[in-house]
């Protein structure tokens, strides 16, 4: 038998009977993953800034046109895919399976388009301009390592996100996954978008060739 004091503790948010954050375990797990992945990308961007500060001959390989115009288009595509993901999550909360799957497919198209544009840029830099992981035509050879390392890891996240979206869209369409699964998938996709909001200005806009 509990006394009044014990019952008060049992009713509190931290007693174990409730979720203290009022979210499911999947969502909390995704948030914790996002925090750890944030630190991974932060380390890479800090390393990039360190390499740049310590190498006075750091190259500025991106002219406003076409390189910056191209990467701006990639940014807008990624932002648009985030909006379609928001609409997918909202549709799933209304239990509208058809529209949820439709918006998730639109998000996948955005992700694939972003990857296609990114690979086009890479191919142009590697085969036409002579950039590689170990060398480049002008300035510090470290540029290639950090540029391809950071943008490559981000592109890997995008590709994993597209596969993840495909799996959840099929599962949700068949009634195997819940609206919470779509929302957790959305968190991952928005995080990929969020990382690009730092990669784009730090790597591209700070390296404009005038």
């Amino acid at each position: 038998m509990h006394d009044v004091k014990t019952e008060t503790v049992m009713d509190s948010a931290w007693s174990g009977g409730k979720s203290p954050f009022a979210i499911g375990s999947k969502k909390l797990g995704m948030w914790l993953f996002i925090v750890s992945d944030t630190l991974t990308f932060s380390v890479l961007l800090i390393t990039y800034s360190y390499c740049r500060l310590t190498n006075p001959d750091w190259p500025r390989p991106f002219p406003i046109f076409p390189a910056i115009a191209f990467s701006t288009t990639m940014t807008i595509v990624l932002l648009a895919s985030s909006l379609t993901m928001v609409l997918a999550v909202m549709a799933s909360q209304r239990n509208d399976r058809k529209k949820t799957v439709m918006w998730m497919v639109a998000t996948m198209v955005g992700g694939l388009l972003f990857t296609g544009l990114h690979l086009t840029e890479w191919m142009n830099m590697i085969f036409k301009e002579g950039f590689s992981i170990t060398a480049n035509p002008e300035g510090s050879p470290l540029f290639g390592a950090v540029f391809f390392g950071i943008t490559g890891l981000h592109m890997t996240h995008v590709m994993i996100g597209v596969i993840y979206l495909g799996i959840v869209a099929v599962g949700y369409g068949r009634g195997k996954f819940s609206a919470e699964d779509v929302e957790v998938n959305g968190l991952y996709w928005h995080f990929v978008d969020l990382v690009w909001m730092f990669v784009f200005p730090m790597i591209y806009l700070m390296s404009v060739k005038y």
Partner: protein
Amino acid sequence: MSSEAHAVEEHAGATVGTNIAIWVGLVAITFLEVFLAYKALEPRLMLTILVMLSVAKAAMIMAWFMHLKFEKFSLVLLLIPATIFCLCMMFIFFYPEAFRLLQMRPH
């Protein structure tokens, strides 16, 4: 009600109009960043402005698109201060040590 069901019960979120407005804001900030790059500001000033704008964009994405604005404040307190603390630790310990190693390299 089970704890899991309680945990995932639906909470208020932004409307479609608000989300579109946030998206337009994000696109507008992106174009502002590109405009600043085009104007060729002094690098330190430009880096400061770009980082501030990027943090603003990240905050908008987290608050509205990732629903953090509509979650319990305890979740925000769990995630944000821990991340900021780790980032501060990286800057405090990584940079001085990295520059010390740089000075030690043979010339």
